[in-house]
């Protein structure tokens, strides 16, 4: 018996999750509701079986997520037996921060990066597990699986700990933390193939359907609720679209697609030459924008 590539990726991820449960004092899974998070939860069930979900989930809610994401979040957490923590930056909410009024950069900083730091400080999590993958974006390619953060949540790319064999250095001082990326070596295609093989539930927004959209700066933005101000002459049209990544709806571009099943998505991906994050408005703010965000504490 030999393991195929998905089985090997799965075993590596389970190994990483077990390192976390063995060493962490107060671990958490940062749950983003996307497909990578879905895979992560599935792997956590496997890693800790027959124990039931011994790590809580944290969702940092910007209040601008797609409605279907929130429904999915609550249902999945309950069904799989995870304790779900939701954090919203109340200060940001009070200031009325929104991607429409303040732009993507400020919105993301206040409602995501600052909110995440608040939640981590409030709960004192020492190991924070996320679903990021190295193939997502160039600065991620050099990210470690166990990525050290200072007490101020900062990331210094020049002071990363080398990772040899399966020997991870998990030692930290009080208030320091480690962000953990069990899916580091997975690609988008691996994730979909695994979702297919394991029949893992994902948010329906990934599947093509006729939805109301407007076209802005070359991106197809779905009109998810009535908070979206329409510019003069703008009129939502019904188009068959789906999403490759999910985030705040005003910042997430859809693609036109007819892929309505997992296998159709896999077929689409094997022929596509467009990168996954192309729909993400925040990445285009400046060259190397993700690296800057990460140094500031973005996940």
């Amino acid at each position, binding site marked *: *018996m*030999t*393991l*195929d*590539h*998905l*089985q*090997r*990726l799965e*075993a590596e991820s*389970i*190994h990483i999750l*077990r*390192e976390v*449960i*063995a060493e962490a004092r107060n671990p958490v899974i940062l749950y983003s509701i996307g497909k990578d998070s879905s895979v992560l939860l599935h792997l956590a069930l496997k*890693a800790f*079986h*027959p*124990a039931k979900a011994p790590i809580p989930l944290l969702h940092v809610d910007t209040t601008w997520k797609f409605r279907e994401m929130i429904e999915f979040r609550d249902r*999945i957490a309950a069904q799989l*037996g995870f304790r779900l923590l939701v954090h919203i930056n109340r200060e940001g909410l009070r200031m009325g921060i929104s991607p429409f009024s303040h732009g993507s950069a400020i919105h993301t900083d206040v409602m995501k990066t600052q909110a995440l730091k608040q939640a981590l400080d409030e709960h004192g999590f020492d190991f924070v597990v996320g679903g990021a993958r*190295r193939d997502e974006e*160039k*600065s*991620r*390619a*050099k990210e470690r699986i166990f990525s050290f953060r200072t007490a101020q949540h900062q990331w210094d*790319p*020049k002071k*990363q*700990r*080398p990772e*040899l*064999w*399966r*020997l991870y*250095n998990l*030692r*930290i001082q009080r208030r320091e933390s480690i962000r953990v990326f069990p899916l*580091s*070596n997975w*690609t988008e295609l691996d994730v979909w*193939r695994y979702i297919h093989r394991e*029949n*893992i*539930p*994902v948010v*329906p927004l990934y599947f093509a359907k006729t939805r109301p959209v407007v076209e802005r700066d070359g991106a197809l933005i779905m009109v998810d609720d009535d908070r979206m101000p329409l510019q003069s002459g703008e009129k939502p049209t019904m188009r068959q679209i789906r999403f490759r990544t999910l985030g705040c709806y005003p910042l997430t571009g859809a693609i036109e697609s007819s892929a*309505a*099943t*997992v*296998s159709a998505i896999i077929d689409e991906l094997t022929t596509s*030459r*467009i*990168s996954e994050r*192309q729909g993400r408005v925040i990445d285009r703010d400046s*060259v*190397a924008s993700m*690296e800057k965000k990460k140094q500031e504490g973005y996940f």
Partner: protein
Amino acid sequence: MNRVPFANASVPTAQLHREPRDLLRFITCGSVDDGKSTLIGRLLYETKVVPEDQLAEIIRASATGDAGSSTEFAFLLDGLVAEREQGITIDVAFRFFATDRRKFIIADTPGHEQYTRNMVTGASNADVAVILIDARKGVLTQTRRHSYICALLGIRHVALAINKMDLLDFAEAPFRAIAAEYHSFAQSHGIADVTAIPVSALKGDNVAAPSTKMPWYAGPTLLDYLENVEVEDRLRTAPFRMPVQWVNRPHAHFRGFCGTIVSGRVRQGDEIVVQPSGRRSRIARLVTFEGDLAEAVAGQAVTLTLTDEVDVSRGDLVSPLSAPAGVSEQFEATVIWMDDDPLLPGRSYYVRVGTATVTGSVSTIKYKLNINTMEHLAGRTLALNEIGVCTISLDRPVAFDPYAENRDTGGFILIDRITNRTAGAGLLHFGLRRAQNLFHQAVEIDKHAQAALKAQKPCVLWFTGLSGAGKSTIANLVERRLYALRRHCYLLDGDNLRLGLNRDLGFTIADRVENIRRAAEIAKLMVDAGLIVLVSFISPFRAERRMARDLLEDGEFFEIFVDTPLAVAEARDPKGLYRRARRGEIKNFTGIDSPYEPPLAPDIHINTTTTPAEAAAELIIARLVELGIISRDLC
């Protein structure tokens, strides 16, 4: 599992037939100048990993000058702003691509000398190395360095990508010459499987598509090679090993030991031993989320339960009773240093072996390796990116295999106890427990019988002091006086021993320690033979003089400090050694660039600036009479 009843409609798997069957990890070695980034960019491009919007970004970034105005594939890879500014890749980056046959994980590491650390990191998990050579330059020092590190870390398959063939008009002769030179070098380093491939990363020849410009080459393209190279999975046939990561106790009736099987296979009912404790049991169940397994193999992450209530915790190793791992607390090991603060022998570090974390220290650095020339060098410490062969001692025993047999149970990391940085990595060679099997053989004609025949009391007179202090001069005079008194004696001179018995030793700290150890052992044998032994050695360290004293019985060892200030010894300089040391021609010279630790309480203290050699010899004889070594009657 609670299946969530929505989302995925069932789909026929026939559409997914192109799924890769296998996973290969490889490392790429070479520098920016060899076209390494271009080669990787080319591989990603040809296997359709480079998306159109990223190509668009390259063009956009180069137009603004952000990319050092490069539109090469290389720009795809430079992930960090700091690197873009410096125009070099400074860390390990991981890239992925897949074909219908395999998924590939590339560990992309820089070739610069100062980044040995990153190469070691990348190589630690790689099965194959792609080593780049610029066809115009041939096998360089860096090529040897990269190959050595790959071999050290256990990579057995090398694709030698001889690049920039387009700049040599795709000529065969230079390719053959480089391939031949590399083959002979690789063989001497235990890299058995080398495939040389002539490529042009820039033009794409022999990267994914066969070149039409090199009809003389009939071998595989680089991608063919990577898709087909048989990585003999020695771990599958090796004995079963599972380091225990975590004990899963969801309730009182279940106690599972979780871990990744790093080698071999295991079945229900197998007899096992938990190491290092040595407790035995049998496998009761192999538990997974999908249900129990009858058998599990290397690479799988499983949960074991045992038939007995044995004490097992994180850090233990589960092995078959028939083929257990070794257990030791002292090792010889190769250490690669990765921290800005140097490795200091004797300093305590956390040592992580398998899932065990213990404390330990390096006791001695036997030698450092010059990874460009393979020379063994002296060294007391290891600096960043240096590699040395060391002995390490742990505070308690751990289970292990030699690294050459098993990377997972033979590799370790050293963690700084103050900063928590990963300070070094190491490869275990073997446990040091040889003394266990040796027993002292009693002899009938013992020391006292030997001494009685000679009618004397045997002892060691240990002369220590700087080079040129006057040790040998005084020792010679003492020996002549003892001979005249018809005493049986022998003078062990440092230089003389180094010309014979110790000629394999240099002047490294470790070699000096060994030099003294041997002299002390010989002196001990001579004392057993009933002799008065004069030892004239610089012997700069207190620890080793102490060791010599401890070998002998009380009243047999006399430390004589031949005390000459450095300036005086240097002014005398009878052998011209100080002058050469000052010019840097002699390294590790005591008093110049290697320390001398004066005795704190010598048995006899000779100040040579106030006591001439003859007077010193008389003083020593008088003292020996006082101590009862020589009878007063004789004098």
